[in-house]
C-alpha cells in the first residue's frame, strides 16, 4: 500500500531528525574546540565514550540512573578536559601541525584500551527502564530514547549558546575564536581560555555520552564511529554556527535511518560514512558554512 510505505518513510525520516539532535550534541564539543583552537580533537569520540562508560559504571556498580550520574560526570569531564588542554595539548601547539593530532591519537588509544580492560570488549548498553520504552504518535512508532536525545540536545545547545553570548568568559572564548591576537590584546589569557573551552567541550561530551548510551549499544571501539559522526556533522553543517551543527546532525541522522531502512541495519553507518566522504570531497566548508 503506497500510503503505508509513505508512513513508514515518514516514520524513518522523523526518527532520523530526532537522532540528528543526538548527533548534533556529540558534534558540539568537537565544533567548539575546532572553532576556538583550530584543532580537530581526534580523541573526541573516545572522550564521549568515556562519559558513556562512566555512566555505565555508575549504573552497574552503584545503581545510579545515568542521567543522574551526570551530576558527578559533568565536573569530572570538566576537570579532565581542562587538564588535557592545559597540560598536554597546549604544549603541542607550537611544535608542529602533527603534534596535537598525535597526542590526541595517543590519548584516544589509551582510552580505548582502558575501557577494554575495565569493561571487556563486549557490547554494553545503558539499559534503564525508560531507555527501552517507545511510544506511538500519528500512526508512527518512536523509541522514547530518541525523543529524550533530541530534547537533551536542544537544552544543552541553548545553554551553551547563552553561555557564549552572555557571560564574560563566553564572550572571551568567542572572541579568541575569531581573532586570537586581538583577544590577547584585550588582556585575555588565551591559554586559560583554551583550557576552559576544552573543558566545556568535555561537559557537552558528558551529556552526549550518557544519551548515546541510552540509545545505542556500545563497545570500547565505538569511539571512532562517534568521532566520524561528530566530524561529519561539523563538516556537513559547516563551522561557526550552532544552527549549522544542528542541521548537519539532522542530515546525517536522516541519512542513517534511511540507509538502515533500505539497506539493513548493519549497513546504515556505511551510508553516513559515504556521505561524509562525499561532502568532504565536494564542499569541505560544509553545506551551511561560511
Amino acid at each position, binding site marked *: 500500500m503506497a500510503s503505508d510505505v509513505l508512513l513508514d518513510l515518514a516514520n524513518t525520516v522523523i526518527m532520523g531528525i530526532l537522532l540528528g539532535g543526538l548527533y548534533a550534541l556529540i558534534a558540539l564539543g568537537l565544533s567548539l574546540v575546532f572553532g576556538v583552537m583550530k584543532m580537530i580533537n581526534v580523541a573526541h569520540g573516545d572522550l564521549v565514550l568515556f562519559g558513556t562508560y562512566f555512566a555505565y559504571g555508575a549504573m552497574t556498580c552503584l545503581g545510579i540512573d545515568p542521567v543522574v550520574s551526570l551530576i558527578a560526570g559533568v565536573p569530572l569531564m570538566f576537570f579532565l578536559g581542562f587538564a588535557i588542554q592545559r597540560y598536554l595539548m597546549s604544549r603541542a601547539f607550537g611544535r608542529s601541525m602533527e603534534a596535537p593530532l598525535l597526542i590526541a591519537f595517543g590519548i584516544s588509544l589509551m582510552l580505548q584500551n582502558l575501557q577494554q580492560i575495565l569493561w571487556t570488549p563486549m557490547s554494553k548498553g545503558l539499559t534503564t527502564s525508560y531507555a527501552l520504552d517507545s511510544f506511538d504518535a500519528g500512526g508512527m512508532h518512536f523509541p522514547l530514547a530518541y525523543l529524550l536525545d533530541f530534547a537533551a540536545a536542544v537544552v544543552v545547545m541553548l545553554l551553551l549558546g547563552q553561555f557564549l553570548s552572555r557571560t564574560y568568559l563566553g564572550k572571551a572564548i568567542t572572541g579568541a575564536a575569531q581573532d586570537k591576537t586581538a583577544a590577547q590584546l584585550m588582556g585575555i589569557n588565551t591559554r586559560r581560555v583554551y583550557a576552559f573551552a576544552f573543558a566545556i567541550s568535555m561537559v557537552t561530551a558528558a551529556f552526549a555520552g550518557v544519551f548515546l548510551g541510552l540509545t545505542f549499544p556500545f563497545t570500547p571501539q565505538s569511539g571512532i564511529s562517534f568521532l566520524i559522526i561528530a566530524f561529519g556533522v561539523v563538516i556537513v553543517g559547516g563551522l561557526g554556527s550552532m544552527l549549522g551543527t544542528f542541521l548537519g546532525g539532522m542530515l546525517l541522522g536522516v541519512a542513517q535511518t534511511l540507509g538502515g531502512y533500505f539497506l539493513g541495519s548493519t549497513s546504515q553507518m*556505511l551510508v553516513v560514512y559515504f556521505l561524509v566522504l562525499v561532502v568532504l570531497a565536494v564542499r569541505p566548508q560544509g553545506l551551511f558554512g561560511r
Partner: protein
Amino acid sequence: MMRKWTALIIFLLLLAALPLLGLPQAWVLYLLLFFVYLAMANMWNLLCGYSGLISLCQPAFVGLAGYTMVILVWIGVPFHAAIVAGGVVAAAFAILISIPVFRLRGIYFAIGTLVVPEALRILFLLWRPVGGKLAGGGAGYMLRGMKGVTVTHYYLIAWVVGVGSIFLMRYILRSKLGLGLAAIRDNDRSAASSGLNVFRLKLYSFVIAAFVTGIAGAVFYLYQGYIEPGGAFSIHWTMIPILATVIGGISTEAGPIIGAMVVVFLDFLLARYAGFSMLIQGAILVGIMLLAPQGFIEIARQIRTRRSPIGVQTSK
C-alpha cells in the same frame, strides 16, 4: 657515513642468515615482525615526515592487501603472486580514494583517511566473496594451502620487504620525487606556485606507501594464518608505524629503523600483558610527543655533540 651504512648492510645480511644458523623460532617470528613494522614505519614516514600527509589510512591498505592475498591463495594462486597482488590492490585503492581525499589539507585529510578503514571494516563484515558461511557466523578466513612452506621462507620474504623499504626510501629521497616532496612539506602553496604538480607528487607518495604497506600487511597475514575484519582494519596498523616513526625520529632515514626495533621489543616485553599494549603504546606516544618530539635520533645527536639547542625567538 659510508662506514655506518656498510655496517648496517652487513648487520642486515646477518639477520637474513639467522634462521639458517638455528635461531629459535620464537625469535625468528619477532624478527619477521620487525621487518613488517619497519616497512610500514618507513612508509608512514614517507607520507607524514616527508610529504606532509598525515595518513590514518594504513589499516585500509593492510586489510585490503591481506584479504586479497588470502582470497587469492584460497582459490589457488601461488602465494608470492598473491602477496604482490595484495600490494597492487592496495595501490589501486589509494588511487581511487585520492580523488576525494586529496582535496583536504592537514587535519581534514587525517580524518578523511580515518573514515576509510572504518568503512571497509564494516564492508568486510558483510561481504564474503569466497568460501561458505563460517560456523559461528564470523567474517574471517583461514589461510589455506600453505602446507610445506617453512617459517624461514616467510621470514626471508619479510626480510626482503623490510630491507627493500630502506633502500626504497634512500632512493626516493634522493630522486626528483624526493626534492619535490621536500618543497611540498614545507609549504604547499608556494610549491604549487613554483610550478610543481603538488597533486601528482602527493599521489606518487600515497600510492607507493599504499603498495609497500599492503605488501607488508600481506606478509603479516601470511605469518598469522588467518584474517578477520576487526583486526585487519584495526587502528593498531596506524598506531604501530606512528609510534615507530615518532620514537625513532620523524623525517629521518634511520628513525623508522630504530623505532621499529623499539616497538618490536616493546611487543616482546608486553607479550604477557597483551591487554595493556595499546594503553602503554598510547602513553609512550603522548610522552614522546611532549618530551622528545624529534625522537631518538635527535636525542642521540644532541648527546654526541653536547650542544644545547640555540634558542630562537618566537612570537606568542
